[in-house]
Structure formats: structure tokens, C-alpha cells
């Protein structure tokens, strides 16, 4: 693993809430990030069907989108979410890891635009998609 990616991985996995969710950085670079979230019973929204709560998916998406902004070639010194919209296509299959992939597809002096998609083992049918705008802090 490249050193910078190793540092980024440690950085993201050191965020207290990322650690609580059990987030793992899979891929990072060039404005793209991939973060996985293994299944945990405490993330369940409805115990009758064992489906992970949408809020956990949005927390994962938010972290992934932020990571994509931070690793953009025009690397901002920092970023914060301005807004994030999540569309839920279906409940994630109980027991499966959810993987989010985010792309920072445009960046200006002040704003970074990001989109992301989350999938479980059924990779052709997304669980959720997200679009967001993030601040660009002074470089």
C-alpha cells in the first residue's frame, strides 16, 4: 500500500464515529474514495427484517464523500458538508457488507461537488445513491 494511502486509511479509521460504525477504507485517490461498512446488529433499523438503518448508510456516504473531496488533485486543506441528499433504492441485504463509492466530479475555489453510490453483494442493484456539495477550505 502506498504511504499516503496508508496515512489516509489511518486518518479516516481514527475518526471516532467512523470507528464506531466499523468503516474501512478500501480505495482512495484522484477524487475517488471507496469505503466499506461490514454488517453489525447494532446498525439495524428494524429488528424484524434485520435491514441496516438508512442513517448508518448516510453516515457512511457522508464520510466517503468527504474522503473523495480530500483526495482530489486540487487537494483542499479541509472540507465540511454543505448539503447531502440520499436516495434509498432498497433495503440492504441483512448480513452483507455495504460498500460506498464516491467521486468528487467537480471542484471550484469554494465548493466541491460529489456523488456516491452504495451497494451490497448484489452490486448491480444499488442500495442508495447520494449527491452533495462540500466546502473547500484554503489550500
Amino acid at each position, binding site marked *: 500500500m502506498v504511504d499516503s494511502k496508508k496515512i489516509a486509511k489511518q486518518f479516516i479509521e481514527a475518526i471516532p464515529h467512523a470507528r464506531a460504525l466499523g468503516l474501512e477504507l478500501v480505495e482512495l485517490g484522484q477524487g475517488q474514495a471507496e469505503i466499506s461498512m461490514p454488517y453489525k446488529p447494532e446498525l439495524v433499523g428494524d429488528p424484524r427484517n434485520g435491514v441496516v438503518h438508512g442513517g448508518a448508510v448516510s453516515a*457512511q456516504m457522508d464520510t466517503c464523500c468527504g474522503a473523495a473531496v480530500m483526495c482530489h488533485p486540487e487537494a483542499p486543506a479541509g472540507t465540511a458538508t454543505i448539503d447531502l441528499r440520499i436516495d434509498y433504492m432498497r433495503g440492504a441485504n441483512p448480513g452483507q457488507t455495504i460498500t460506498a463509492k464516491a467521486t468528487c466530479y467537480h471542484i471550484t475555489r469554494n465548493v466541491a461537488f460529489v456523488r456516491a453510490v452504495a451497494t451490497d453483494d448484489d452490486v448491480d442493484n444499488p442500495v442508495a445513491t447520494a449527491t452533495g456539495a462540500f466546502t473547500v477550505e484554503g489550500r
Partner: protein
Amino acid sequence: MARARPEPMHVVKQRRDAAFTALVDGIPYAQFLGISLERRGDELTGVLNFDDKLIGNPFLPALHGGVISAFLETTAILTLAWQHFLPMVEAGDIEIEALTLENIPSFPKTIDFTVDYLRTGLPRDAYARAWVGRSGRRYATIRVEAWQDSRSKPFAQGTGHFLMPQPKDSETAS
């Protein structure tokens, strides 16, 4: 013919409290985040009880954006579920004795949810309140605001659309 005597208030209150507890305790993820719900009559307030694991930026420190989003969404779902669920309990369609996690109706499903982050979420308790714009047979629209020190200075707001539990859903669930 005399009308049936109205039920004593403590019976009504006991039934509502039982229904309320069944609803809030039904979400493991809400327990994980430390979200509780307070009820004053028909007004519900979500409470996010602060814990170190909710931190997203340890340098500021600040609440994780995802936690804020999940808090708003959970408050929205519970408010919507309560409005949908209480009339069923009041009408006697659901018995309090039978109120367990297995037979409360399904929760509304999120179709989409948008969060605006207005200020940094400080490392302390947060509160949220939701307003149901419209709740129809199939779809509902809801707006939520969250604040900490001052009600007039929300640190996040959200809006979302939900699919309401359909009668056939609860049949299959039971």
C-alpha cells in the same frame, strides 16, 4: 340511551406510554447512537445524547455529519410512525398487552432525505423536531430541524420523503 363512560385519563396515558416505548425501543440503530424521544402531548422531540463515538472531527471537535443526518432522519421516521401508529392504538386495532416489537406496524421507509448543515455540531446533546407536511396513504413529506443551545439557531435542517407502511405489509410482518 346513556353514552359509554369516557375512559379514566390514567388508562389513556398508560396506553400511550406503552405504545410510545414500543415504538422507540424498536430501532437498534437509535440505541447505538443514543437517540431517545420525549413526548409532551402530541409534540415529539428527538434527543441525541452526546457520546465520544459521535465525533467526526476530533480536532474541533465536532459531531460527525452522518450522525447529524441519521439523527434528523430517525426523528422524522419516529414522528411519522407515531402519527400513523397512535390512531391504531386508540381505535383498539392494537392491544397494549400485545405490544411487542414483533407486532407494531412497520416503520415508514425513507425514499430520499436531504440535510443542510448550517453550523458545526458541538460535542454536547442535540435536539430535533419534525413537522409532517403531508402524510397520505402512500407517501409523506416531512421537515426536521436540529438545535443545541438555542432553538432559534438550528445547526442542521432536513427534508425527506417517505413511503408509508401499507396494510398488507403489516399482515406479512405478523
